[in-house]
C-alpha cells in the first residue's frame, strides 16, 4: 500500500510520531509529527505537494489541532504535525519523491530549530520555563 510505503520511508527518522492508530485508520491517510519542526514551515518546504498541517478541520487556524490533542498529543507535537492523503491517482514514484523531499526538509528545518539543539544537548524541554505568548 502506498501509505505504508510512505511511512516506511520516514519512520526510521528520529522523533517521528504517527498520529492515530496505524491499523484502525483510513487507508490513504498518514498524519505524522516531526518533533521540533513546526508544521507550517514544513509545508512551505513542500510546495510541490498538496499537504496540510494538522487535521483537515484546522488547517486554516493557528491553533494546534484539537483532534490531535484529543488523541493525547501535547501541543508541541500537535504544532509539528503534517497530514498526507494519498489519492486514487497517486503513483509510487510520487511517494518516493515525497519521501526524499520530506526527509531533506525536516533535516534542514531541524538545523534551524533551537528545540532540536536542546534535544541533542539532552535538555528536557518540559523542564524549561517558557514564556507563553
Amino acid at each position: 500500500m502506498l501509505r505504508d510505503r510512505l511511512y516506511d520511508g520516514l519512520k526510521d527518522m528520529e522523533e517521528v510520531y504517527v498520529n492515530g492508530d496505524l491499523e484502525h485508520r483510513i487507508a490513504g491517510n498518514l498524519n505524522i509529527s516531526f518533533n521540533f519542526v513546526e508544521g507550517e514551515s514544513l509545508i512551505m518546504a513542500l510546495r510541490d505537494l498538496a499537504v496540510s498541517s494538522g487535521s483537515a478541520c484546522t488547517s486554516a487556524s493557528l491553533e494546534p489541532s484539537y483532534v490531535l490533542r484529543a488523541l493525547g498529543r501535547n501541543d508541541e507535537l500537535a504544532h509539528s504535525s503534517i497530514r498526507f492523503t494519498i489519492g486514487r491517482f497517486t503513483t509510487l514514484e510520487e511517494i518516493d519523491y515525497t519521501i526524499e523531499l520530506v526527509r531533506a526538509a525536516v533535516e534542514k528545518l531541524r538545523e534551524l530549530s533551537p528545540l532540536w539543539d536542546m534535544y541533542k544537548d539532552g535538555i528536557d524541554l518540559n523542564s524549561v520555563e517558557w514564556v507563553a505568548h
Partner: protein
Amino acid sequence: MAYSEKVLDHYENPRNVGVLEDDQSVGTGMVGAPACGDVMKLQIKVGDDGIIQDAKFKTYGCGSAIASSSLVTEWVKGKSLDEAAEIKNTQIAQELALPPVKIHCSVLAEDAIAAAIDNYREKNQ
C-alpha cells in the same frame, strides 16, 4: 496563504543561522514557547565600542517567524544596543509584508532583540 517574496527569500536562504560561543560579549534571548508553535533564539555579539558586531538565530516556527528572526539578525548588526532596541515589530511586519494573522511573529522578533540586549546588559553590569 500567500507568502511575500521577502518571506520566501528569508525562509529559503535564512541569514545568520547558528550559535555564538557564549562569553561575556554575547547576549542571548530566547522567547516564545513550543506549545504556542514558535520559539526564537537570538544572539548578539557586542564589541568594546558597544556596537553589535555579529548576530545569529535559530527559530522553531512558521515561515514568517523564521523570516522575522532572520531579518532582525541583519538589522541589528552595526547598531548600538539603544539603536537595536528601537527596532519595532511594525517595521518588521511592514518589511516582510506580513498578513494580520502573522503579526505575532514580528512581535516575537522584537521581544527576542529586547531579551538578547537584557541578557547582555545583565552580564556586563
